[in-house]
């Protein structure tokens, strides 16, 4: 690809750009106002890209459930939950690249930088990896206990997972500052269905098949996210959060 200067030929344009003369800046409020403008520019694009990534992730989660249910029906020698749990971390790590998960980490870092927080980028990556571990370990322990015949003890862990999910959301909501994700109705529906399906795992007659009911909900959530992603850049939300 050849290098090019797209501005060539438009220099005579008389469009006035919002130039700042540092010496002429008359108040700190003005500096803050201008910095908020730059943050807004970045958030607009980041929220669009994140929403699109979430749409793909929700749809991909549906594929995971279908694979698990197929395994549960056909591969009798593998405990279905074990299958789900064993491949989930691998999918998350692989998916982190596919869904732009690493991109989200970087976007959060850029927004934090723009808003005057100077955490290291590595700190953000570590936090995201820790999140994956926290949200995965209850399933690993559950599977291990189930397979060793300690079902009674195992049933503590799906509710624990749901509790962790809620803590994670509440803490994330309070500490993230201006988030790169606009929380929407489809996110609420996705997480509620995930919680219900997780809790149904401890009902012996339902088990892993509880995730079956979540399939249409997840597909719809994914498609809605993909369909509405462009709205993140077309419309500006005053509050930064929408339903």
């Amino acid at each position, binding site marked *: 690809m050849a290098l090019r200067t797209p501005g060539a030929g438009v220099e005579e344009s008389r469009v006035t750009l919002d130039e700042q003369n540092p010496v002429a800046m008359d108040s700190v409020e003005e500096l803050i106002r201008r910095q*908020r403008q730059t943050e807004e520019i970045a958030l607009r*694009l980041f929220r669009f890209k994140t929403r699109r990534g979430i749409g793909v992730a929700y749809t991909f989660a549906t594929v995971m459930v279908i694979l698990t249910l197929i395994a549960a029906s056909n591969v009798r020698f593998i405990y279905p939950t074990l299958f789900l749990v064993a491949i989930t971390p691998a999918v998350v790590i692989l998916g982190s690249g596919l869904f732009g998960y690493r991109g989200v980490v970087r976007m959060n870092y850029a927004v934090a930088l723009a808003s005057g927080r100077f955490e290291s980028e590595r700190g953000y990556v570590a936090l995201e990896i820790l999140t994956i571990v926290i949200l995965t370990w209850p399933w690993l322990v559950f599977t291990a206990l189930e397979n060793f015949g300690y079902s009674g003890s195992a049933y503590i862990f799906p509710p624990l997972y749901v509790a962790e999910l809620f803590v994670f959301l509440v803490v994330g909501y309070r500490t993230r500052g201006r988030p790169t994700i606009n929380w929407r109705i489809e996110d609420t529906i996705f997480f509620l269905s995930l919680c219900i399906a997780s809790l149904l795992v401890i009902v012996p007659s339902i088990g892993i098949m509880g995730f079956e009911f979540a399939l249409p909900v997840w597909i719809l959530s994914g498609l809605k996210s993909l369909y509405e992603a462009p709205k993140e850049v077309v419309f500006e939300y005053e509050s930064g959060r929408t339903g």
Partner: protein
Amino acid sequence: MSREEQDDAILADDSLLGRLSSLGPLTNSARVGILIVLLGVKWATFTDLLLAVKLPKSSLSMSLSILQESGYIILRTGLSKKDRPRTLVQITDRGEKAVKEYARLMHELTGGMLTES
């Protein structure tokens, strides 16, 4: 010390303002916004930036030219999958350092109020 006096003290700090001036092209909020975007996504298309910055095409082109001349970004043109011409904008190491330095200076100039507000 009153709020106004605090403002004056901060803005009278020539060393900070001098360092901010040395970042030349970054005295424009749209250009800083472009670099923050590129810091987050590494590269973006011209259309992506147009949607984010919400400037006329000519203004965005001009801003990109200025950033390219300063060595903060690289512009590449190529064809999309549908054989349409498309411009990719990528941040350079110099651009990354500049925007980080800018953020640090703004933090100092605003006396940490950027984080609080």
